[in-house]
């Protein structure tokens, strides 16, 4: 296998912006007079990074925010200088760190294709040769002579991606450009990128948060954390798992609630314990996945049963109530509480929730004499962050706003 990119001990140090690095000439002058610039602080955005990339490799670079992924791409594409180390690249390099770099709103689609192509390193002859292909791929042919400021954002992005997809440089550096466009177009982008690498023997370095895209596109991967490479395995599956285990899911996990002094109590209803497990009773895995089924166990104490006692569990995400569960909603159960300790368990089926942070809160009240209403701020609650999506992602996780993702039954002919 021929090595086309050889990265040796690459590092990049940034001066910290909080430190007295002058932003204006006036400040610089002030610093210079008082010798303050000597004190500037710095941090390493990337350190000690080495990697050999072979021809035809599709390398996924994964890592959380600020892990150094983008810095790596910026150094490789010579946008920013490295502080230490060296890189050797064999072949023409094109980088796409953003969709539509150099697009000007006043120019027509046609003009922007030429401009953007030149910005990405294509010659005019090359663009002319592939122009029809580019336009056909973008699907904006009818509007190609209209200024892009009148394009919808989808059209804009499709045209921009189409230009990049027709670059014919040997090395492509891509930064999460898939996080754009509608589902159908994204699937086409992925297909196109597959064919670019597999059919034409090109090399791609792909930086992404999107594990599904990395899985389907890449044959090798690296994980970055705080500017350093972690793990020495380049197997995609292992890297994705390593990343997911390193990477804290966005939300706080609160899988168990137990009564403590000061919590809500009433003679006819005192919550004692609320917890969530996997449906089979084992602990909720970390990270939790959308396909997982869960059980919620609730224990409460009753001294004097109240005929109108009602409680339910409200499941919400992003402060939006989604659904609730209450034992009284099942007519055939005819649920009655008994004096003493009561247990109820309910189940959340798998393939219902999406990759989001869920909150499960208990609401309870009893109307009439001797009744109560549990105040909002004293509701016991659980938090269940789900970080892993198991369905096939046809939409970027970054733009996915769906709070639920139930698996539905389909009939397709």
């Amino acid at each position: 296998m021929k090595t086309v990119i050889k990265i040796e001990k690459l590092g990049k140090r940034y001066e910290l912006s909080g430190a007295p690095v002058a932003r204006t000439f006036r400040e610089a002058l002030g610093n210079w007079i008082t010798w303050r610039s000597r004190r500037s602080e710095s941090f390493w955005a990337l350190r000690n990074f080495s990697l050999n990339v072979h021809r035809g490799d599709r390398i996924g670079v994964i890592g959380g925010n600020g892990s150094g992924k983008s810095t790596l791409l910026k150094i490789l594409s010579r946008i920013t200088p490295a502080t230490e180390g060296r890189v050797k690249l064999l072949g023409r390099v094109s980088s796409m760190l953003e969709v539509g770099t150099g697009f000007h709103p006043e120019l027509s689609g046609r003009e922007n294709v030429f401009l953007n192509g030149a910005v990405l390193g294509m010659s005019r002859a090359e663009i002319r040769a592939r122009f029809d292909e580019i336009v056909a791929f973008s699907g904006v042919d009818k509007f190609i002579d209209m200024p892009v400021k009148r394009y919808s954002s989808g059209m804009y992005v499709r045209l921009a991606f189409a230009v990049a997809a027709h670059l014919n440089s040997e090395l492509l550096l891509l930064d999460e450009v898939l996080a754009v466009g509608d589902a159908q177009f994204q699937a086409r982008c992925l297909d196109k990128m597959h064919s670019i690498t597999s059919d034409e023997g090109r090399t791609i370095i792909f930086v992404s948060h999107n594990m599904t895209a990395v899985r389907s596109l890449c044959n090798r991967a690296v994980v970055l954390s705080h500017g350093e490479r972690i793990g020495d395995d380049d197997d995609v599956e292992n890297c994705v798992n390593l990343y997911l285990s390193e990477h804290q899911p966005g939300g706080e996990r609160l899988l168990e609630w137990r009564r403590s002094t000061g919590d809500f109590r009433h003679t006819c209803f005192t919550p004692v314990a609320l917890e969530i497990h996997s449906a089979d009773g084992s602990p909720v895995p970390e990270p939790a996945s959308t396909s997982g089924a869960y059980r919620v166990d609730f224990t409460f104490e009753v001294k004097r049963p109240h005929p109108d006692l009602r409680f339910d569990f409200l499941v919400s995400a992003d402060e939006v109530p989604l659904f609730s569960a209450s034992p009284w909603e099942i007519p055939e159960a005819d649920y009655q509480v008994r004096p003493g300790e009561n247990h109820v368990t309910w189940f959340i089926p798998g393939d219902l929730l999406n990759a989001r942070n869920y909150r499960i809160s208990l609401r309870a009240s009893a109307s009439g004499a001797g009744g109560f209403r549990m105040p909002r701020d004293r509701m016991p609650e659980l938090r269940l962050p789900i970080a892993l999506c198991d369905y096939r992602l046809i939409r970027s996780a970054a733009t996915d706003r769906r709070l639920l993702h139930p698996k539905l039954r389909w009939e397709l002919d």
Partner: protein
Amino acid sequence: MGKIYTTIESGRSSPLNWGELWQYRELFWLLAWRNIIVRYKQTVIGIVWALARPLTAMAAFSVIFHRIAKLSGVPGVPYPMLVFSGVLIWQFFSGMVSSGCESLVGNRGLVTKVYFPRVIIPVSGIVVCAVDFLLALAVFAGAWLVCCREVWSWRVLLFPLTLLPLLLCALGLVFFLSSLNVRYRDFRHVVPFLLQLGWFVSPVGFVGSAVPGTWRVWAQLNPLYGIIGAARWTLFGVPLEWSAVWIALVESLLCLAVGFMVFRRQEKEFSDYI
């Protein structure tokens, strides 16, 4: 497709790669063309602007310096034509400097997202000013043919040559100011102020000989003094002050050298500071 090797090494500024500049010539023209298109998109307004600015300046300066300040011009040349020539050159110069100074910051999207020789940006910005200049020059040429018959001479063929130090000087300033503007944003306030001053310090609305003797030494230190003087010599036969021409030449070359050096030193880190 030829094999291309690239080596990225830390802490070393690579020598200027002329081959690479040649490779990116198309991007240069496309950027220049984009600037022109965007500027003249609403065609009528764009062209009207390019002509209205020098013409109003000419009218105002003729009134102020000739009618009010009673400065005398050159025999055989209408005073407004003298002013027009000065305005033409000065506006070309100040247009290049002011648009060039903002060029890098204005193209931040390109600078932070793609690689290409950064020199392309400020230089492609200058091309638009050249188009403005040529439009105004066409009007001027018409007026010159009609009103200045008495002073026509072969010297007019040298006129383009006088623009050479102007270009060098502007280019040097543009390199210098645009790279400093990336690091220190307050330059964008300083530059318009200095250019405003330049309108009156440079011999735009008056002829060099109108400056009293003791002041003339200082006035000559301004490269525009020599350049505008030389241009008026080619156009109207105004006596040439050789000392001023030499000063302008040396200063322009120096300006270009220093500006380009500063630009090259900062170039690599533009994307970190912009």
